[in-house]
């Protein structure tokens, strides 16, 4: 009852304020000049990123520096999580001790195998078409990370580790992705361009589709980096709790 009264009060106040505000509020119908600039120039014009997707061209070209450092934030968050859950050499060896086994019924596992292959294809499509449709490296990478997550759920994390995808490998792939981003950003400096410059240094079109110049490379490397980063996190989270308690020396 008490909750209900609170709810009613909040609703009344909300509606009252909303009514009051609506008296002198005109919803905007036109575009900001800056927004218009981006829409106009993202594909055509002299100030173009050669990508019909205005959002991606802002994300990786016009305001590319933001995204570079956004990637850095994500990188630091994952490194921070690894630091928080860090294990010594012996401990990480011990954490890897275990046999892959089916943790879910057989049909689920069999379907998982096929789904994993399809998810990999779909995520690559999301990442590689970031310059044409909504999506991009981060979204594709997040989809990519679903594959190891499903494998962990169906076959346990040892299945990944026994087949060569352990935390160290994930970090290596991640570093390669990040260095790829950095190299793409640095390339224009070689030809006296600006850091993260896109046009006219990178080819804007190839194979009958707009590439968006550097956008496609950024998306590809971001895809690898994000996918591998999430994989490292999932591998860390799937270490059994008892092992962790033992490592930390906590008695409960």
């Amino acid at each position: 009852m008490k909750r209900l009264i609170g709810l009613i009060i909040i609703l009344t106040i909300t509606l009252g304020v909303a009514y009051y505000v609506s008296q002198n509020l005109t919803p905007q119908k036109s575009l900001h000049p800056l927004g218009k600039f981006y829409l106009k120039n993202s594909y055509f014009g002299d100030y173009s990123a050669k990508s019909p997707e205005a959002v991606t061209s802002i994300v990786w070209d016009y305001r590319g520096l933001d995204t570079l450092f956004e990637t850095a934030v994500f990188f630091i968050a994952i490194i921070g999580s690894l630091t928080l859950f860090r294990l010594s050499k012996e401990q990480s060896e011990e954490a890897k001790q275990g046999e892959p086994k089916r943790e879910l019924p057989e049909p689920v596992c069999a379907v998982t195998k096929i789904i994993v292959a399809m998810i990999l294809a779909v995520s690559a499509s999301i990442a590689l078409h970031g310059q044409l449709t909504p999506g991009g490296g981060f979204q594709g990478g997040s989809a990519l990370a679903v594959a190891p997550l499903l494998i962990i759920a169906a076959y346990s994390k040892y299945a990944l580790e026994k087949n060569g995808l352990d935390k160290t490998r994930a970090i290596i792939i991640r570093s390669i992705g990040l260095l790829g981003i950095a190299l793409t950003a640095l390339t224009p400096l070689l030809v006296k361009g600006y850091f993260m410059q896109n046009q006219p240094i990178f080819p804007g079109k190839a194979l009958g589709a707009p590439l968006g110049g550097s956008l496609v490379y950024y998306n590809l490397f971001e895809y690898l980096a994000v996918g591998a980063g999430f994989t490292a996190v999932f591998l860390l989270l799937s270490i059994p709790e008892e092992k962790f308690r033992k490592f930390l020396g906590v008695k409960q």
Partner: protein
Amino acid sequence: MNGACLTPIIPILFAFALPITSILVKGNRRVVMAYALTGTGLTLVSALKLFQSAYSSKEPLVYTFGGWTAPVGIIYEVDRMSALIALVTATLMFLIAIYSYRYIEEALEWYFTLYLGLEAGLLGVLLTGDAFNLFVMIEVTSIAAYALVMFYRDRGDSVVAGLKYALIGAVGTTMYFLALGVLYYGFGTLNFANLSALIHGLSFPVVGKPWGNVVVASGVALALATWAFLIKAAVFPNHFWLPEAHPAAPSPISAILSGLVVNVGVYSLARFVYTVYGGSLSAGLNSVVHALSVILMFLGAVSALFGALMMLVQRDVKRLIAYSTIMHMGYLVMAVGVGSQLALSAAIFHMVNHAVAKALLFLSAGVFIHAAGSRNLEDLAGLGRKFPVAMFSLAVASLSLVGVPPLNVFFSKLLLFNAFMGKSFLLALVLVLSSVTALVGYVRVFYEVWLGKPKGDVKARESWSMSGVCLVLALACIVIGLLAPYVVSHYIDPAATQAVNYKLYIQKAIEYASKVKLGL
């Protein structure tokens, strides 16, 4: 175009490559250390170069990322204020990296990855000329700071403190993000120069006139942004995370957090108040900025007194120093609130001095804490005689922070005093009162560590990499103090003059717009 503006890129590149390097060398500590020193060293060289070009040119330096000028793309606009603080930041980060080698005993590669990320964030905050990029860089700084506070992952207090810091910090940055949304809605742009031009009624390419109601948008945006920055600067009533977070971190990180990371909030606030909303404004905006400055002065004063009082009752050395940080942040925010050019030079000088002295204080206390394995004042008793260099540094740092002439903080406090007297006698009184109170706190530390009865027998020798860094910083405190008039007239005052010259700031951004042939 000035290549030195790419300074924040260097540490982040080094951070990106550190995990793979460490895997390749199998976590060899020496290689990791050499790598980190190369990273921070190159950054320092670049920051020095930037400092030289900023002081040799009469105008702010501009770097257009991707070749896009404001407001279409992100530009770095580096005036002398940014370059000066960036130089201090890069120098301290380099020295503290040396110090960390002996202090951090495990997981050095993770530590330095986060460390380099933190450095990139700090430098980015200082150099950027774009409000949204400022948000991203603040996040880079903060997230690295959260992770580093939780570095001692098996100590409950560290993790709890880091978690509190992260929760409150995330709320703050989201507030700032909302402020940016409002700014974009009201003005149609996110570039500092462009915002300033719109506020002062000057022309600018692409976004020539404000979009909505400037006064309302400024009011809401400034309120939200100020809240966010006050959280970052740990000013009352948003200070409560700091006395837990700063002590819980490893000492070198405490030094960075207290000396440099809190400056992020004050610097951003100063950028908004002096460069974007500086000079003469229309009546509506003027009342908004006036209200803001009153609030800042009030909160700063409360914060300074509160910090000083809390220093008296602490038993944990690092906690005591952390409260002193709150006190000094109170001074800085008061100075930003005062709003005169004198106050800005005082704030810049104090920011620099406080960074050096506070870092020194944490580092020299860290030597003792490392040796004794405890942060409790009683456990450190009498250790001073075993570590003469560290003791000397601790003495210099605490005397300096109290404001004893001829050490550096004395002169910035003097400037602050003058600036406060220009506004109100009460503010100056707060400065004096809190300084006197703080003196008692520092003397307690000093007395215990030097003359207290040793509790147990600590077998540790002075390590040169740690004490040497302390010595360098202690000498810096003394030298800056002795040369204070020269430093103020040659470095601080020009920085303040340029920071309040919003017309030049705007003009420089426009100039670049035409240079890259984007004149629309």
